[in-house]
């Protein structure tokens, strides 16, 4: 019996360490900044274990039954902790609160385990043997798991399944202890039933938990996938590597948190700085709230209408902590009106006019998206601009897709708008192009807004200079009935990818 209990110590110790490792790994995986999260999680966990040890003194009668129940609780709560954190990350705002709450609860329960075991074993061994043997097995368990976890468990099983597996081990300890002490505890059958229920729960989690993490998808992306979801409109995937968070829509990169400020400053400020105190702003696409973040830096802006097709995009970027940090909580601004609608249809149905329209659609990779770059679309867009207003339009790369870029410029011009084409370098994208479309001629303004990291009065005139390798080429105009842009785009990016 003594050795049986010492094996239990080994198992319990390894389980306790695993939950701590998983919490630390998951936090740095989902939130980055691994040093901070690992050390605060270890600290919190150890402190909680201390609380557990202290609380053990209040447990008097029915020591064994209590111990079994605690094992079951550790098994269920600890075992499902990774799965819960994944779900919480996607759906709740308070990820960190739940993370630390979990660490505390599991820590307290784990802190209770060893003191209770010591007391159970105290009549069976001498004190010096008791302490030496229990602590030996405790540290051995920790060693075993600290080697197994990074080398075998995390890469082979994944975090969610590893976590459930150790939950199952905790419950098996409870099962074993129940059978060892079956003569000494009251209501054995009730305990057994609880053990069976916990086992079923955790085994179910082990079998199906894999779906939460979509490791299959990771081979597609160089970085780790921290969130993925298929909406009726597209597939959203967030990856992170160190402090670089990337968003992919239908596996096309939308932004990298490393350099998105370059893209969004360039999209917004050249037009914004030119306008005199713009009040009403329209954003088409841009459900990530990053262009909006730049817009909200202007006190003159009274209202912003953001039209994005996918409600999941705006929901994710207005609730997830990490993403809210990126867009500076812009999607929660009281000035904002979010509309989840098809942009073309919305423009057709709506009669509002705006001082600035930010047009940030995905590239024209297919005929459906190609419609958003046609004469018909720009005609409609022009109707929504004030006479002094402007639109800033993302227009793919003038370097990799030169004809496509200039086709967009020509199409905008054929709709009667004046254009000011410009480009910037965004490391994760390469050379990227934009167009300012307006009813009166654009002139390069002074940049008066403080605090920008990329756009400045010195840099801005250079944006509008095109070197020979991406200077203007003649193209056809993109109409709904020729969709020439999609054809240019397809052949140009096809060449790049070869």
């Amino acid at each position: 019996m003594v050795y049986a209990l010492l094996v239990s110590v080994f198992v319990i110790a390894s389980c306790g360490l695993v939950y701590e490792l998983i919490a630390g790994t998951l936090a740095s995986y989902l939130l980055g900044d691994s040093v901070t999260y690992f050390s605060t999680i270890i600290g919190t966990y150890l402190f909680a274990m201390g609380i557990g040890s202290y609380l053990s003194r209040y447990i008097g009668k029915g020591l064994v039954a209590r111990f079994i129940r605690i094992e079951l609780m550790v098994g269920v709560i600890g075992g499902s902790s990774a799965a819960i954190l994944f779900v919480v990350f996607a759906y709740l705002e308070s990820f960190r609160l739940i993370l630390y709450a979990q660490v505390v609860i599991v820590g307290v329960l784990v802190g209770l385990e060893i003191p209770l075991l010591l007391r159970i074993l105290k009549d069976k061994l001498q004190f010096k043997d008791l302490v030496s043997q229990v602590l030996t097995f405790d540290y051995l368990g920790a060693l075993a798991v600290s080697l197994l976890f990074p080398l075998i468990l995390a890469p082979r099983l994944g975090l969610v399944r590893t976590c459930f597996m150790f939950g199952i081990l905790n419950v098996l300890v409870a099962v074993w202890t129940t059978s060892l002490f079956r003569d000494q505890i009251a209501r054995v059958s009730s305990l057994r039933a609880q053990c069976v229920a916990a086992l079923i729960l955790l085994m179910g989690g082990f079998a199906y938990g894999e779906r939460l993490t979509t490791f299959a998808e990771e081979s597609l992306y160089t970085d780790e996938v921290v969130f993925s979801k298929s909406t009726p409109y597209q597939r959203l995937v967030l990856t992170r590597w160190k402090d670089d968070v990337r968003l992919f829509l239908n596996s096309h990169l939308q932004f990298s948190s490393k350099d998105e400020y370059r893209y969004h400053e360039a999209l917004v400020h050249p037009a914004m700085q030119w306008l005199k105190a713009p009040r009403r702003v329209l954003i088409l696409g841009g459900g990530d709230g990053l262009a909006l973040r730049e817009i909200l830096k202007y006190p003159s802006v009274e209202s912003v209408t953001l039209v994005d097709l996918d409600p999941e995009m705006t929901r994710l970027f207005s609730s997830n902590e990490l993403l809210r940090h990126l867009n500076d909580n812009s999607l929660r601004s009281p000035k904002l009106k979010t509309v989840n609608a098809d942009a073309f249809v919305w423009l057709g149905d709506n009669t509002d006019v705006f001082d600035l329209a930010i047009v940030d659609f995905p590239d024209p990779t297919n005929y459906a998206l190609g419609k958003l770059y046609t004469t018909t679309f720009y005609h409609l867009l022009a109707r929504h601009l004030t006479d002094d207003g402007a639109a800033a339009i993302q227009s793919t790369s003038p370097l990799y897709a030169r004809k496509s870029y200039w086709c967009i410029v020509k199409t905008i011009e054929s709709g009667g708008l004046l254009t000011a084409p410009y480009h910037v370098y965004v490391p994760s994208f390469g050379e990227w192009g934009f167009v300012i479309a307006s009813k009166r001629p654009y002139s390069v303004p002074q940049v008066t807004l403080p605090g920008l990291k990329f756009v400045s009065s010195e840099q801005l005139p250079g944006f509008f200079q095109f070197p020979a390798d991406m200077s203007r080429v003649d193209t056809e105009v993109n109409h709904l009935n020729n969709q020439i842009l999609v054809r240019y785009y397809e052949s140009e990016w096809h060449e790049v990818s070869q």
Partner: protein
Amino acid sequence: MTRRELLILGAGLVAGCGERGRGTVTGSFVGASHDIGHLLRGGAIPAPSRERRMPVVIIGGGIAGLSAGWYLSRNAFQDFEILELENEAGGNARFGKNRVSAYPWGAHYIPLPTKESRFVRELFEELGVITGYTNGEPIYKDEYLCFDPQERLYLHGRWQEGLVPTLGTSDRDHEDFERFREIVDGYRARHAFTIPMEFSSREKDLLALDSVSIRDFLNSRALSSPALHWYVNYACRDDYGCDYGDVSAWAGLHYFGSRNVDEGSVLTWPEGNGWIVKRLREKLAPHIRPGSLVFRVGDDSVDYFDVQDKTSTTIRADRIIFACATFQARYLMEKSDGIDAFEYAPWMVANLTLDAFPEQRAGAPIAWDNVIYDSDSLGYVVATHQSLRVHQPETVLTYYYPLAGVSPHSERERLLKTEWQTWADFILSDLSKPHPEIRKLVRNIDIMRWGHAMVRPRPGFIWGEHRRRFTHPVGRVHFAHSDLSGFSIFEEAQYRGVIAAQWVLESRL
């Protein structure tokens, strides 16, 4: 409420309330009142009990009848009435609408009108389809031009862009296509074929083309490429509802040689030509009398049966425009010599409502017109193609099937005797060639049966005496229908309607 309407309503309720089992498809026959039409022959119609006067009566509210009314109204002549058998005017250009989209029941596009199609251009200016002109060439509203991609063809297990077969074709095929193109260009240079067809050249060697079939014409020019034969046959089935062995070479070449080559674009709307019907119906609403079954056309009178109140009325008229299918003269007029020369191709048209688009497989992406090589059908047209939405989850496909067998009579019998379920299975098995998953996607199939969909331009008909005789007014009656042109297209129907209206205006009533 008729039994048919009750059934449709019932089907709708079932579809709306009950949860659909996987792979079960709802639907029914809709449209054309075969039962009412047959009353004509059954003699169950009461004798007229009332009589009234109306200067001009137009019989039939298809494109010809509506165009006659449009032209009269446009010229400030308002004393006319259009008698329409169905609940809604529109004829072959009628349309339907459900939660997902509007969709056509027949005619669904119009090629860019030629210079000779003066009245089509006038109508399009009035409807805002033509927004202006540059160098005499019309500017069309972008939203009404067929969006790209326009056409694709399923051939050798792959979709290719365009309808001229290119996948797996040989140099011989290319040569034959090139030679055929040269032949057509030669005719075009001579202005051999125009729209309206009345302006076509009357040179003898050209009219002689009407005496052979287009198939024999190809063979006589040693054009034997199977791909070219398929293509020409497809065009004949598409525009004339007939096998190319039954289409005169004049009509066959007219299809290729009457329009500008470089203007491949067409005008189209989700509801097809129903878009035009809707606007003409609005303009002419006070003049249109639906549910009116004309059962006798006299020298100066028209008798009709009101389907609603079950009474018959005689209208005394100064001018009568006979704008329903010309063959009806056989049942409505005392004398109709030569009417047997008018033969008609039956058609089956189905609208399929899909929960999702078919999967994108090998080759070209989904287009407006999607044709399956070597199928007896003409494939399908995507009703939501002209939608400006980027995200279109559900859709409606309009499936066209001309019953192009040798005998129109037995084909018509087949059309009417075949059960809905059999047609539905037929359609789904045809579409499952390119789209194996189609049965899982289709929610509903409604089917329209057109017994006399199109006049057949078989050899000898277009330039034969019978057709020409019916183009001239007899006493107070003027025929007006695309039948009089020998083939069923919008421009011809409109032209015949306008010509009859001009005849009315010239008489200065």
